[in-house]
């Protein structure tokens, strides 16, 4: 059984694959950004005293966490146009991934908010702060520093999830790896390179994010 491993093949296609990698990173970061916004809104809805808001938040998180991401992608890309919402594939994928990330972030933020001791909120009330100030000056800063590790880990997870964009032919890394495989039958070159690129990127991200966390870890 002989297989001629060809570096030439990798060389010719590495450009596309790295572009795909870059796109994947970009998508992950943007989706996390929107996801954080959605997550904040839903987390406050989840901890508010309004029953209706609690329920909406619960259903939102349950739906996006229990339904397969691939199904969500198809619903958005193929299904929504039927009711008039059309998006090109990159936007559609980011749209889906943002809501998906938001559901996860909701849980993270909700736990973070509930971990803040009640006494601190009361202290804010006793120095006359209104609800907005307590939220903006006390709850959010404390919560964000608490959830930072979770968020950075999730960014890495989200980056791996971008591989699913290949299913709607978004030109990211997995899409190019499969294209290479199918067109040239160079099985090892395609997939070992892809795997290698993903692993290196993930470890690099983990390393950099750990450094960032250490820098941001304020004296408290």
């Amino acid at each position, binding site marked *: 059984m002989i297989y001629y491993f060809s570096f030439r093949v990798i060389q010719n296609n590495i450009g596309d694959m790295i572009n795909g990698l870059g796109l994947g990173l970009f998508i992950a970061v943007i989706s996390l950004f929107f996801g954080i916004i959605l997550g904040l809104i839903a987390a406050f809805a989840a901890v508010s005293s309004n029953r209706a808001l609690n329920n909406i938040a619960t259903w939102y998180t*349950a739906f996006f966490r229990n339904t397969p991401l691939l*199904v969500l992608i*198809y619903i958005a890309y193929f299904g929504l146009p039927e009711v008039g919402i059309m998006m090109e594939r990159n936007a559609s994928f980011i749209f889906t991934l943002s809501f998906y990330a938001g559901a996860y972030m909701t849980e993270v933020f909700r736990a973070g908010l509930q971990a803040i001791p009640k006494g601190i909120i009361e202290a804010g009330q006793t120095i006359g702060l209104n609800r907005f100030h307590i939220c903006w000056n006390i709850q959010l800063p404390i919560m964000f520093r608490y959830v930072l590790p979770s968020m950075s880990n999730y960014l890495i997870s989200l980056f791996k999830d971008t591989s699913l964009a290949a299913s709607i032919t978004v030109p990211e890394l997995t899409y190019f790896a499969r294209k290479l495989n199918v067109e040239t039958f160079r099985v090892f070159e395609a997939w070992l390179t892809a795997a290698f690129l*993903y692993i290196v990127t993930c470890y690099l991200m983990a390393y950099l994010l750990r450094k960032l966390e250490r820098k941001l870890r304020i004296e408290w």
Partner: protein
Amino acid sequence: MFRSLYNARIILRIGAMNTITVTFFAIIIGTTLGILFGFILCYGNKYIKFPFRLYVDIIRGIPGLVTIFSIYYILGFLLSRVGINLTNLESGIIALSAFSTAQVAEITRGALQSIPKSQIEAGKTIGLHFDKIFVFILFPQAIVQIIPPWINTATEMTKGSTLLSLIGVSELLLNAHQLVATNGRALMYYMFIGLIFFLINTLIQFLGKLLEKKVSF
């Protein structure tokens, strides 16, 4: 709307069977091997640990989809050279199992490592050897910690089975594609499939909570 769903039930039944088969095997194989790997990762010496550590880190460092494609294409290629032809379903089960094994291994390792060493020492002082210590003292305590994330893995497998549609396994999502291709109405079919998965996963989580209660002390 319900008419077309009703008409589709035959196709969907096959899809459901495949989804369940794949998920079932992935969970069973993954749990068995995963616990074994986790045990090795916790208690093994550094030479024995190494290949398993490598395996787990690689699988967890690449997206599930890439694992699935890699195993499908690479294994398919290798085995076809020696005359074995895997069906898509079989490749799919192997790929999904590889993924779940790595996850369960990590969960098990974490749970076992969190049990204080003093428990092992206590077991030794009442005359037990490590094998009995593991079975009667360590594992029962580890199980309580393993179950919640394990339920999460089970739901991940259920959701992951949809990825197999991309390697041609005729599970629910692929069937949904076929229905959409013939009948249009993408939103309805995909939402319906989504609903099925949502219900299955909600059920799994509910059963998981019950299991947690039964096992905790």
